[in-house]
Structure formats: C-alpha cells, structure tokens
C-alpha cells in the first residue's frame, strides 16, 4: 500500500520485457510511455491489471472471510453517500472493479444481509421493515420484488472488495499507489510474469490460484 504503481509496473517490465525498442533498459521515466520489445505500454499494464484481478479472485475463493479481510485489507472499499450506494427502483448497480461484497448498511447502522438468489423463495416470507435484505443478481444488488423494506435512497453504506484497473496515468504520475498489501506484491508480480509468458493455461485465475496455494 506504500508502493507506487509505477514501481510495480517497472518491476514487471524488468522481468518480462526489460528494454525499450531502442534497446535501452526501462527506468521510471520511461515506463508507461514507450513500448518495450515485447509489449506496448498499455499491453504491459493490461497484464498487470489482469494479475491484480486474478489474485483477488483466488484469495476470495481460497481464504475464509476473517483471513481475507486482513490479507487484502487494502482492497476494502466503502461507498457512502451518492452512487454507487444508491438504490433506484430497488436496484443498486455494483461499482466498477467489484470483486466481492462485505456488508451493506443503512445510515442508521442497520445491517442488510446480502443473499444469493438461490434462497429467494425461502427468504421472501421474512420480508419486513424490521428485517430488510437484498439479493446478488448479476452486476446488481436487488430488493425483493414488491418489497418496501429497502427503500430507494442514496445514503446506504456499501463495503466491498474492489480492484479498479490502473491507467497509464497512474503509471506515469509516480504518485498513484498500489492498493494491495505490501506482502502480496511479490506474488502479484509472479502472477503477472506468468501471464506475460503465458505459462500453462492462460487463465489469470488459474495462475493466481496456483501462486496462492504455493503458500
């Protein structure tokens, strides 16, 4: 969380594509602006962003919630007033970069459980103002049809794990920080390196799973 995006992408470049087309080794000033021998600047960044999403997905599956909340604490995001924590016509659209939910609460600190749609029929008879809940459905959180227990409003507090893609500006400005916890950064680079070299099945999730399970 104290490491810049520029530093990370530079490290990746030095692993998989260390020189520019002019055969000059990448440095901080050139990373993100000129193409390497193998990858254009954007492509290299795309690989890095894929690795970030893959790592988050693997951790979500492999680690229990308590451990996950510590290991990727830097990815925890919280939306307060305004979009995307707004329910409109009973729907809240999940924000870009959403990986997994943590909690949904009202401004009065009332918990609203987020349920899978598979339990809709069981849950529906419990719907009441004192017992609100919503369902995950595709890229949204949805209120039970016809329910008024979660009214349309824009002041819900939504906690979630999110990984938003970095842009080339994040690389070149030298100030944008990587949100992953520092101890995961070497592993992140390993995943990105393997994606870049297309080792095994080119599936960022599968590569990430393998990296995490190495211990």
């Amino acid at each position, binding site marked *: 969380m104290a490491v810049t995006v520029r530093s990370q992408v530079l490290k990746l470049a030095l692993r998989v594509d260390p020189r520019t087309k002019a055969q000059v080794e990448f440095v901080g000033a050139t990373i993100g602006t000129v193409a390497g021998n193998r990858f254009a600047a954007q492509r290299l960044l795309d690989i890095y962003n894929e690795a970030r999403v893959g790592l988050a997905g693997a951790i979500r599956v492999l680690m*229990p*919630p308590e451990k996950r909340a510590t290991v990727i604490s830097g990815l925890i995001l919280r939306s307060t007033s305004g979009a995307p924590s707004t329910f409109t016509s009973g729907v809240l659209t999940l924000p870009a970069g959403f990986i997994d939910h943590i909690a949904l609460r009202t401004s009065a600190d009332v918990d609203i459980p987020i*349920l899978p749609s598979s*339990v809709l029929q*069981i849950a529906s008879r*419990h719907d009441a103002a004192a017992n609100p*809940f919503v369902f995950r459905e595709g890229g949204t959180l949805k209120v039970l049809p016809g329910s008024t227990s979660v009214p349309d409003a824009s002041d819900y507090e939504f906690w979630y794990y999110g990984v938003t893609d970095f842009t080339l500006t994040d690389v070149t400005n030298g100030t944008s920080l990587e949100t992953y916890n520092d101890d995961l950064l070497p592993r992140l680079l390993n995943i990105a390196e393997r994606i870049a070299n297309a080792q095994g099945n080119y599936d960022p999730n599968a590569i990430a799973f393998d990296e995490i399970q190495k211990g």
Partner: protein
Amino acid sequence: MASLSRDWTAKRFFQHALSELSLDPNNIASVQRFELMDQAVSAVASMFYDLVSNSYLTAVTILPDTTGRYSNSGTGTWVAATKTLTFVDMNTDFGSGDVGKTIVFRVGALVYIGQVASFVGIDAVTVDGHNLPAADVTVDYVLLSSSTPTGNNITLNGLRMMRTAAIKLVLASTESENVVPMSEEELNGWQNGAPKNNGRIAWAYTGEFINLRKGADLTTYGTFTLTYPRVPYAITADTDYLDLPDGALIDIALAKLESLISNRVTLPKPMPDKSTELRGAIDSLYRSAGKEISQELITSKIKSLL
C-alpha cells in the same frame, strides 16, 4: 410486555452466535433470525420449565360471556362447505365467548339448531350439529343462547399458554373468595343449590375452555383473574429483549441457536463442542434450585439442544 432478560437484546444474542460460528450476517439464517431465536428460547424454556415456570406466570382479566344475541333485520347466509353462518345485523356482535353456545336459525319454514364451534368474526361463526343445511342457503333469523348448555365458560382461545408442561392455572373472582377447581366429571355432578355450594364458584379446565358453575347465592360470576403459565414472548425486532431469565439459560439458548444456524448455513469451521460446558451449566442450574437431576437426563437434554 416486559421480557425476562435485562441484558440480552435479540441483536446482541444473534451477533454473539454468528461471532462464535465465524459467520457474517450475509446468509439465510440472518434473515430467519427472529424465528430461530424464538425457536431456541422456546426450546430452552420448555426444557427447563420445571425451574422457570414461576417466571412465566401471567395474570389476565377475563369476563365470562353471559349475553345472548338475536338478529335484528335483514338476512344472513349459511355456507355449507365451511359450516359458516354469517349475519351482519345482530343486536350485538358475535364474540369468542360465544363458542359452545346453542344457536338456532331459521331458513324459510325450516328451523335448525346447533352449537357454535368457532368464532370467525363479529358477523360470523361456524356451527356444529346434526342435519344442518347441506347447501348454501339464506338465513332469515338467528337466536343465540346466553350460555352453554352445561353452564358458562371462559374460552382460552388467544392465550399463549405453555401446554407442554404441567399446567398451573389459578382462577380468582371479585364475586367470591371461594373459587374451587375440579375435574370436568366433578363439575358435571356439582349441585349449585347445595347449601355448601351457595357462595362458591366451581371450575374445570378442559381443552380450550374453563367451564364454570356458580352457587345459588351468586347472581354473577364477577370479574375473573386467571393466572396461567405463558409461553415466551416472540421476538419481532432486533431491539427486543429475550424472554428468558438471564444467566445460565442464556448460554444454553445460545448453544441451541448455534445448532439451529448450523443446520442452515455451511460453517467456515467446525462448530465448537459445548457438551461439557452445557453439562456443567445444567447441573448447576438444578443445584441452585435445590433440585436433583440425573446425568442421564442431562445427557438427554444436551442431545436435544445440539
């Protein structure tokens, strides 16, 4: 209505259970939490009712219904399939106290007699009896007797009474200090004109009713106060307090709740084994009440809880 616990709100209780099971609230058990907590509290209260029954004794004022009714004007309906008689323009509304009373109604030239089986609403009752109309008909007139054929009664419909333990009912009247409980058989043979019964009220508990007789010197039953063992109050909000005495029973109910949750949600780690803790809690509960309980019975209770 004050619940028995002073320390444990529903929210605190449920969150405690989730915390011990390493669960967050995003699961179906959280949505079902009020019912699950009711189930846990009821199970524990019922299981240990011999220790806590006095805590649940509740007094309610009851008036026996000695009012007859008749139809004023217009017509009513009889629905054969449900045996429901509906007449909107009665002189006074039907009530739950009409159950058991004799009812007579006219349909054209035919007159029917039966007994009120249940109270449906202020305009309707269901009727039991022989040779009642087999088809839906229009009812021309209704007469309802002022009392049951055997005397007066009090209906216990609507009372949330603990029925799975030995039921202790106490009935007191403003009209007489001599209110005597007896069996239904004894009540049937009770003589209200006998000198010793002149100032007495006799009663028998039967199913959903308390049947009554009064001695010849009494003109009314007065107002009754019935003390009965109630069931725990249901939880309807996170701010409600549990209707269970604070102390070891809360720990026992917590174990029961965790067991109920584990039946609905895949746990991230094995449920903690509370058998030893529960055995100690149950043993100390009985000792502190000055009662004995065998180890076999404790084992049986623990199996029921978990």
